[in-house]
């Protein structure tokens, strides 16, 4: 039972970069300070703090949320870490929502941090041990080839040409040109994607987002407290999350059922009956170009197999009927895992406040953000409304 309606009243974000000199604490501080300033709040106004940060193995600090605490504004406050792997960035505001919607706190500072660069030479090493040690690890999987299997099945089942998938990378890297934090903004063509280095077929270099360092923050408040700080709150009206079996072999990879389950939960809570008509813009998780399409379908914003065509036809561009990833997404802005998910929620906030500058989508009323991760079987969904 929801006791209090939850508003978003501030947001902040650092640069996303391949390697930053700052420690994770320092990155968290920059994002928090920006969020507090944007809400015209001080740390004293914050009653609780939720930290979202993905595997400890990236930063190389076990229990890293505890390490990040003072930079994230958590000292001497009720401070909680939430963690669902790659889905963490959108799960963190869901954790913040619990704090406020329950009536336990009137304000909650939500922070997400990821510093992937300490893991050297490449953070991919950290993924070696996420697999079941008996069933999967003997084959020495890496994430890219696991995704290649999923991408292959998705494309084959729906008969989707690679060109249509590549169009998504072109759109997102282009959108990121207008994002001040972006790491990999670029004007590229479908041909550039098709000509890029083959990593694990069908995944090529330009199909994939880069590892990054970065942090993001968001301030949530109960309705009455939000009104004291702003005349222009954005409402976090729906939250949903769902995990499927950890056994890949017990599900069909062509459709993310767990995202659909999470989306239905969030839409129901936000009283959204026809998401395709009612959602003004979406920020689905796009660590790979095909994942944006996969997740757009999971969010029930396109028919199964129908999402790539929306981009080919231009409908998912900012001036189209169904803008998708107007931020530039992970493909363009960068992918510091948890911070990337929260970046998507921040984008929804800025869009709904008409503060997205050159990225602004016309008539933005309702927005949905989604992340995905854990053992590739969680969907986390938040619905925002102005």
């Amino acid at each position, binding site marked *: 039972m929801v006791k209090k309606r939850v508003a978003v009243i501030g947001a902040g974000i650092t640069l996303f970069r391949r390697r930053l*000199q*700052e*420690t994770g*604490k*320092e990155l968290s*501080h920059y994002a*928090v*300070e920006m969020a*507090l300033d944007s809400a015209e709040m*001080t*740390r*004293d106004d914050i009653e609780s703090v939720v930290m979202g940060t993905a595997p400890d*193995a990236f930063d*190389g600090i076990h229990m890293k949320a505890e390490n990040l605490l*003072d*930079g994230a*504004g958590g*000292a*001497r406050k009720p401070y909680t870490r939430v963690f669902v792997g790659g889905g963490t960035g959108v799960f963190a505001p869901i954790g913040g929502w619990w704090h406020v919607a329950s009536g336990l706190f009137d304000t909650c500072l939500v922070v997400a941090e990821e510093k992937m*660069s*300490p*893991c*050297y*030479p490449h953070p991919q*090493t*950290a993924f*070696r*041990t996420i697999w079941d*040690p*008996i069933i999967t*690890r*003997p084959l020495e999987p890496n994430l890219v080839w696991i995704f290649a299997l999923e991408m292959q099945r998705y494309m084959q089942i729906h008969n989707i040409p690679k060109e249509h998938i590549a169009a998504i990378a072109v759109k997102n890297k282009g959108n990121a040109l207008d994002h001040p934090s972006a790491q990999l903004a670029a004007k590229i063509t479908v041909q550039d994607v098709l000509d890029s280095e083959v990593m694990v077929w069908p995944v090529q270099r330009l199909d994939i987002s880069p590892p990054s360092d970065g942090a993001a923050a968001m301030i949530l408040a109960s309705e009455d407290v939000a009104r004291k700080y702003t005349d222009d709150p954005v409402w976090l009206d729906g939250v949903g999350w769902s995990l499927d079996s950890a056994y890949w072999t017990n599900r069909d990879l062509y459709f993310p059922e767990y995202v659909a389950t999470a989306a239905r939960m969030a839409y129901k809570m936000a009283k959204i009956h026809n998401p395709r008509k009612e959602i003004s813009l979406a920020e689905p998780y796009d660590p790979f170009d095909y994942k944006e399409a996969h997740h757009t379908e999971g969010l029930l914003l396109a028919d199964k197999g129908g999402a790539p065509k929306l981009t080919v036809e231009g409908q998912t561009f900012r001036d189209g009927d169904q803008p998708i990833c107007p931020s530039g997404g992970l493909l363009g802005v960068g992918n510091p895992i948890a911070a990337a998910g929260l970046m998507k929620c921040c984008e929804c906030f800025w869009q709904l406040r008409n503060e997205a500058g050159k990225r602004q989508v016309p008539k933005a009323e309702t927005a949905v953000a989604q992340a995905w991760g854990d053992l590739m079987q969680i969907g986390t969904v938040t619905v925002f409304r102005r």
Partner: protein
Amino acid sequence: MSFEKIRDPRRVRHWKGDMECDYIYTAGIAGEKFFTTIRDKAKLLATRCAKCKITYLPPRIYCERCQASLDNWIEVPKTGTIETFTTVHMDNNGAPLSKPITLAFIRIDETDGGLIHEIGGTKPEALKIGMRVEAVFQSKSKRTGALTDIKYFKPV
């Protein structure tokens, strides 16, 4: 279900593995300045939040109480007071150390912080909480810009 206790996991189907990862950690914006100053000048730097009246050592670029960004850097003495100490007789696997190590938490003068470090130049039996100590730095050629550039703290 088998409730039989397995005394040796190698007697059932098993696989060996590890969770090794290699890392390169950066000191951060505050750490870079703190450690290069130790390396080049054998001096300790702190940052101060005037509003909260807190001096941070190790220095931070933010105040953990008010979250303001801090750029008020000050040099502080290399002396301090032992807040607490202990003597380690066993290594992390429980094996006895040939030479016990004495460690202390030292509150650095003029700061609200401090360092945990080794105590040298005295016998453990001589130590007391409240005792005054000072940092002994490695010679300049041996300093690399790390915590171990301080060899130990010794009684003043």
